[in-house]
């Protein structure tokens, strides 16, 4: 099972991005500066942005979804309970997971942006996809909610998870690191070998590496554990 970008070229006017690579099973983290084309690439992989050339193939993937940066776009249910049902999920259990217990009759689009993002991500990650693509899933969430999303991703209920983000503090454990650099998608390799080559790594990882630590993954706790092991 994989999602493959073959000689892909994406363009918006004069701007172009090339991508060539295979997203196999596991958690993939794609990072890059704002404006580098993360959203465009995520849309192309999800099949909603037409590439200028090249192609995207899905091997063994029958159900794929994309979480857009703004959760409002995904809403189809007038009330919170209708929205949860539109994802074919149990209302009470999902409300509990989202921290919105008792608010099933609230109008979905009157939730705050943070609450709506929580609801959307809980519903999306709670559905049985073969591959999920998350575009800036942490934007608009507080630190606790970011951690909760990371935990849900780490449960690996979906064979392929691709995360596009510029988040620098709360990240999930990942299997493969990708970076957008100089208008091209570059694979840094599998974690943990990829960590030293990751140019856009969070500062806490860079700091740990400078100290000589070798974190096993990319989370803050991996960096602190590596440092503690070193000093033990």
């Amino acid at each position, binding site marked *: 099972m994989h999602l493959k970008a073959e000689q892909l070229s994406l363009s918006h006017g004069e701007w172009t991005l090339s991508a060539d690579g295979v997203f196999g099973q596991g958690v993939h983290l794609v990072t890059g500066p704002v404006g580098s084309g993360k959203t465009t690439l995520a849309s192309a992989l999800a099949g909603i942005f037409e590439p200028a050339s090249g192609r995207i193939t899905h091997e063994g993937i029958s159900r794929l979804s994309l979480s857009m940066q703004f959760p409002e*776009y995904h*809403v189809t249910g007038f009330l919170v309970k209708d929205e949860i049902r539109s994802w074919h999920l149990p209302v009470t259990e999902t409300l509990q997971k989202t921290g919105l217990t008792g608010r099933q009759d609230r109008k979905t*689009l009157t939730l705050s942006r943070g609450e709506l993002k929580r609801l959307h991500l809980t519903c999306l990650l709670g559905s049985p996809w073969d591959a999920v693509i998350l575009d800036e899933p942490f934007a608009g969430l507080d630190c606790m909610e970011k951690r909760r999303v990371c935990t849900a991703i780490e449960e690996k209920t979906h064979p392929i998870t691709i995360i596009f983000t510029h988040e620098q503090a709360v990240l999930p454990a990942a299997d493969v690191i990708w970076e957008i650099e100089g208008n091209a998608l570059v694979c840094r390799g599998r974690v943990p070998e990829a960590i030293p080559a990751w140019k856009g790594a969070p500062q806490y990882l860079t700091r740990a590496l400078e100290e000589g630590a070798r974190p096993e993954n990319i989370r803050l706790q991996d960096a602190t554990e590596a440092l503690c092991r070193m000093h033990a």
Partner: protein
Amino acid sequence: MQDARLRIGATLLLSCAAFSSVFGAVLAALWWVVVARNERNLPGRYAAAVIFGAIILVAGFTEAFGGDGISYGFRMTVITLIAFWAFGRGREGDLMNTAVWAFGDRIGFDLGLTAEMAISSLRRIEKDIRDIRNALKLKGSRGPVYDLIPLGFTLTIMQIHRAREQGLVLATRGYQGGGTFSPSFQRSKTDCFAFFSSILIIAAVFVSFVGYL
């Protein structure tokens, strides 16, 4: 045509001429063929099919029920073509420049600001519609008719949120009505000819009416 005042003036005159009679519409169509030849800004196939399809549909019904549908269809088509030309040539700040030039920096400024904000919103709505349709497709679209309800609802709520936040931005920037603005216009060699010819067209239509009476 670069001068926004002349373009808006020509658009008004030609629209009146085209709407008033088939003769006026023929003259306006000729004007469009000659003057707008390099700046017609015709829409894409899908949008053109929807817009002209709607005109043909209404014209067809009018003709079928005893009205002059063919004349209506022709006149509306010419007006729509003129509108594409006028809208496509619009530059940023045109409406503000023209409104302040015509009505001053109090009412004119407010009118221009409203028009500029409306056009800005249209561009954002285009993107919102595209994104909502894509999101619905990914979630499992139930067909274009069913999708219209969540699309319309989400779009409306998003516009309300956006308007509220933009109102907040305007308030913190000190907007209370009116403002400093110096209108500026560029004019090409052909602008005066194009505008003058639109005056001739409306005059010809007027004369033909007088002759008819």
